[in-house]
């Protein structure tokens, strides 16, 4: 802090930039002293010394460029989903530090994991994995997009509960932002409906799971309705036309 005794008042006349913050611009073709005079850094003659656009990037003078040498392969799956993994030991560590807390009324969701720094990016959803299950000691109530079988086993052994919930990109965004005015969409794809209807995955549409949870605080009423509607395939049969003799 400059003392006012040693300098006159701070005015427009005595301001200066921070030392080292400004760098002189490189100006070519302005004499020998600048080291960039004469040919201005372009050398002598040749295509590159001429004005106008140079050669196309990636052009190798006619030789097959490296981008064309090798054949194309495969395709990019547009429906692919990348899960953000989080291990049980990490969750336990976070709880020990006081950065995460959960109760049956407020289960751990993507929002809590992101904001506490347990997970750095949510991608298409959270998947709970079972590494370090021996370090898990607290009861956890968590609603991820997916969970591995060993993680489910470990959490339920300690008295907690996992319910895998379907989040489409919009639902995930709403979960992170804390928006509750919109209804989260039900799964539409057959794969998703099948996956979330299985008890072994602790899917939210599984009738066994919903019966087991009963009136737990984090169960939504909509799950029961969806489970009925999306579970109709279990009782349906395809009509087979009987051949008339």
């Amino acid at each position: 802090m400059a003392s006012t005794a040693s300098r006159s008042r701070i005015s427009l006349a005595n301001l200066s930039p921070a030392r080292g913050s400004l760098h002189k611009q490189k100006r070519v073709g302005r004499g020998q002293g600048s080291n960039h005079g004469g040919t201005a850094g372009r050398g002598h003659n040749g295509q590159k010394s001429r004005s106008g656009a140079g050669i196309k990037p990636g052009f190798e003078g006619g030789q097959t460029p490296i981008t064309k040498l090798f054949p194309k392969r495969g395709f990019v799956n547009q429906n692919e989903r990348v899960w953000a993994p989080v291990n049980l030991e990490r969750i336990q560590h976070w709880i020990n530090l006081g950065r995460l807390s959960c109760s049956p009324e407020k289960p751990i969701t993507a929002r809590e994991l992101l904001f506490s720094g347990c997970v750095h990016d949510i991608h298409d959803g959270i998947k709970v994995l079972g590494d370090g299950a021996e370090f898990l000691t607290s009861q956890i109530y968590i609603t991820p997009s997916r969970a591995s079988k060993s993680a489910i086993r470990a959490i339920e052994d300690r008295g907690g509960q996992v319910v895998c919930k379907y989040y489409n990109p919009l639902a995930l965004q709403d979960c992170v932002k804390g928006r509750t005015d919109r209804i989260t969409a039900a799964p539409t794809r057959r794969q998703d409906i099948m996956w979330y209807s299985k008890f072994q995955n602790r899917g939210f549409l599984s009738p066994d799971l919903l019966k087991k949870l009963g009136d737990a605080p984090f169960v939504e009423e909509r799950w029961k309705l969806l489970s009925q509607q999306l579970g109709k395939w279990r009782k349906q049969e395809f009509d087979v036309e009987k051949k008339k003799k």
Partner: protein
Amino acid sequence: MAKTVPLKRAIPDPPPPSITGLTASLRKPHESAECQLVALDPTVFHHPIRRDILHLCINHYRDSLRQGSANTRTRGEVRGSGRKIRPQKGSGRARLGDAQSPMLRGGGVAFGPKPRDFSTKLPRKVIQMGMRVALSSKVLEQNLGVMKTMDWPNGKTKYLSHKISSLGLKNTLFITGEDEVPTMLQRAIQNIPLVGVTTSREVNIHELLKWPRVMLDAKAVDFFEQSLGKPYACVDDTPVQEAISRL
């Protein structure tokens, strides 16, 4: 080391600012010796002085003022035909195309100025810091004063000029916290030399540095403290749980 001469004022100098609590006092000469004190937010009025930040902010402001209307004609814009002036070979002189080439007299300008926008971007928080530094520098130089309200009953310049001279407030910028400068005050003050008036919303860092002394309204002090103040000067101690639930 040059000895600075303090600005002569009828009001005695306010007490030097302390780190724990800033105070600015304004005592009218005909009033009693009771000092009226104002407690100022140290995060706004006692910020460490950063001349380089002021430099950045002033440059940003002055860039935004540039008109940027310099224009020249290129060889494509100079009026003239595209006819080849002399044959390619045979004349013994240099080869030439049309008469508008920059090599020739009367031709276009090569790489001349064109109208462009000279304004630059500066992070919002740097601009806010600049305001804090500017206000703090005024307090440090004991050139910042606070008044309760700023208004003038009639629009007569004569009486206001006399009052300002008697208070010793020449070379001062008056900043009021109202939405607009009161009309009577505006009329009375606009012709007085070496005195300026503005609102706290419109004031910029250039004016704060240009004017030797600054007088604030009580409302203006509140405005600056609200818009520039930091809720906590040190590290945030609230635990994460509370911060999450507050989101």
